[in-house]
């Protein structure tokens, strides 16, 4: 088996204290090998987002350990975490989180510029990625001039900007209608085929269906962990 890109041992995140305490993530063990696409499902409030944030170094665990490419995240300084996020992790959020005042291409090159690439390199890479997500002709549009699906594709392009080790997506289609969902679905499927390590939190079984593996969470812990043998049924249907 290949080396794990992401690994967690006894990962725990609690909110509050005493009787009001919530175990958002409760002693989770996880390992995601390179190139695997993993879908996490479960009822609302079971701790999916929290888990994703812990895995991406956006939040610190109350207990337990996380490794990304063999490096401990839970003990890292804020600065190192920031560097790690821009070099090794790509985030995609439910509500896109694009910068309203930057155009599509500027949003995509944001991460590359932060990582210290030269403006020209960053622009070239952003152009390539926008082309990849099918938005080359919208490069100079502001997010407000894009549809929801288009915004999310810009966000995916941004997440890929620095060739991350892992892409973490939190309900990427949660705010989209079914046509836009299909666009994102196709994009994720391409990523999977290319061997991009992917962790997707979703309520949408179509998204889950394209994954190599699916985890179901309940009350902060894993209730089910299954490897899906079949390729997504949607694949080829609209390709």
């Amino acid at each position, binding site marked *: 088996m290949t080396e794990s890109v992401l690994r967690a041992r006894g990962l725990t995140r609690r909110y509050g204290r005493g009787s009001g305490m919530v175990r958002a993530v409760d002693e989770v063990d996880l390992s995601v090998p390179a190139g695997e696409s993993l879908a996490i499902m479960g009822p609302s409030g079971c701790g999916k987002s929290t888990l994703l944030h812990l895995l991406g170094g*956006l*939040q610190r665990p109350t207990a337990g350990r996380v490794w990304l490419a063999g490096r401990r995240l839970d003990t890292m300084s804020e*600065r190192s975490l920031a560097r790690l*996020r821009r070099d090794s992790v790509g*985030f995609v959020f439910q509500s896109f989180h694009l*910068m309203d*005042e930057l155009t599509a291409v500027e949003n995509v090159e944001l991460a590359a*510029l932060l990582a*210290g690439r030269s*403006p020209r390199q960053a622009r070239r890479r952003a152009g390539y990625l926008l082309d990849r997500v099918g938005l080359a002709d919208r490069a100079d549009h502001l997010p407000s001039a894009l549809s929801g699906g288009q915004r999310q594709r810009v966000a995916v392009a941004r997440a890929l900007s620095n060739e991350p080790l892992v892409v973490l997506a939190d309900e990427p289609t949660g705010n989209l209608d079914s046509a836009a969902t299909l666009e994102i679905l196709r994009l994720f499927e391409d990523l999977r085929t290319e061997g991009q390590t992917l962790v997707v939190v979703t309520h949408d079984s179509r998204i889950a269906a394209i994954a190599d593996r699916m985890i179901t969470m309940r009350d902060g812990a894993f209730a089910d962990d299954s490897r899906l043998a079949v390729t997504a049924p949607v694949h080829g249907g609209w390709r």
Partner: protein
Amino acid sequence: MAGRLLLVCRLLVRDLRRRPIETILLVVAISAATGTLTLGLALNDVADRPYERTRAATAGPDVVARPHTTGQRALAALAPLTTSAGVTGHSGPYPVAFLVMTAHGRTVHTVVEGRDTAPARVDRPVVTEGTWVRPGGVVVERAFADALGVRAGDEVGVDGRRLRVLGTAVTTARPTYPYAGWIDPDSALVERGGLVWVHRADIATLAGARPLSYTLNLELADPDAGAAFVDSATTLHAGELSTWQGIAEQDGRLVADAREALLVGSWLLAALSIAGVTGVVAGRVVGRRRRVGLLKAVGAGPAMVAVVHLAEYLVIGLAAAGIGLAAGLLAAPALIRPSAGLLGVVDTRPPALSTVVAAVSLAVVIATAATLVPVVRAAFASTIHALADAATPPRRRRWRVRLSRRLPVTLLIGIRVNARRPRRARLVTVNTLITTTVLVAVLMNHAQDEPFDLGYTDLVDPRAERTDQALLVLTVVLGVLALLNAVVTTWTAVLDARRPLAVARTLGATPAQAGLGLGVAQLLPAIPGVAAGIPVGLGLYTIVGPGELRYPPDSWLLATALGVLLVGAALTAVPAMVAARRPVADALGSTPA
């Protein structure tokens, strides 16, 4: 590196362009404070330069001697000075009489100096209008002529004798009007007055039975050694010796009060400006939180987040410093109205480096002081929390909420609105406190205004005139800033309270109650500000003002207090009423929960 710089600049430019009104508000607030400081500092500089220019043009003396005695004894006392070590030249002794002059129906103290028609080696007054002295005529010092409104060709009376005004001239051998040094022959006290020159042959007639005084102008080998010379010459008992630096300083006294008022005022304005900037910045923080979260999610470290935010305020601060400097330097010559007693236009270019440094530092301090806390907080905030778009959840002050349950609806709404955002309420307090302080200090200054005794007539005191001008500038700038702050705090209060007010209205409060409630919310924290502003203003004036103080009537103070509150309430009323009249559903829908 280039990439990050590009990013910082890009975000900066987009942000400034996206919020032009806030940017303008910030620039106005900061440049008001720096402009006033510049004005205060520049006045100092402005006051010195014309003196030096005039001194060069008139071959001004390095030391001037005036014996305490009169007649032959005075001449005898002055004689050894001309041969003292270090003296390279002199003019005089010239006879001097302390008389009164009548011009345009006004009678004023006048120092009359007898001069020759030929120019002297030391102190050659430069004629600015008409001609120099000849028998039967009088030349009036220019600032004095300016105050009296006399010109060449007019007729004046000196101790009852009619003389034609030959011209006006400037000198640096005596301070300009009203500090010419008129000595009361009976009491020997120095009083305020002006200077005129007559022909040496005329002075005995003008003085009549009064004994003549004398004045001697000295030139030293080293013009800067005046103080040492004065020290060494005390043994000669030649009377009072003044160095040119001393005379320049007396000339500068004309603007000393104005300068002090502006300097103290600029600190108050700086505080007001910080309050205003804090208000604007606080209003933007909500929008900023999301951006911080976003930057962090894509991998910006705390330093980068801080730089992105500070850069903007720094640029605004620097722009405001430039504007404030320019405005202050432009206003300075107008305020000093190149003392008519000195030559030349007032030139503040190039500004003193220290003035530039002070103004820029003040602007940067204001910009960063107001933004540092939110920026640092943002840099270390939890990414997730920031991304959730949530503003700091309003704080609930339990006692206030409980207290307000027993109160009328309007008051209840007002107290609850403030309980949600205590920091904004504090800004309102600071704003009214400073406004009241300055107004009370201005009232105090007004109460000190005494008739300016120039012998027999009241003339405008040029020193008080300049102080009044400075205070006027200060009051206007303050008024603009205070209004601006009031509008900003009200408007953010209105935006912030839209939802709770809408909820209150779904529960049955009328639009009028909701609107008034908002008004009350702004008024309540203003009351302690006004109440504290009165003693603070009085105290401040006591510290920096002159020794003996007169206090303005209580009714004025009360009127000021009520005026500040009323203006505040009126400013609040409009946006509050507009907000309160919007349909409830709109308000409920327009802000995220």
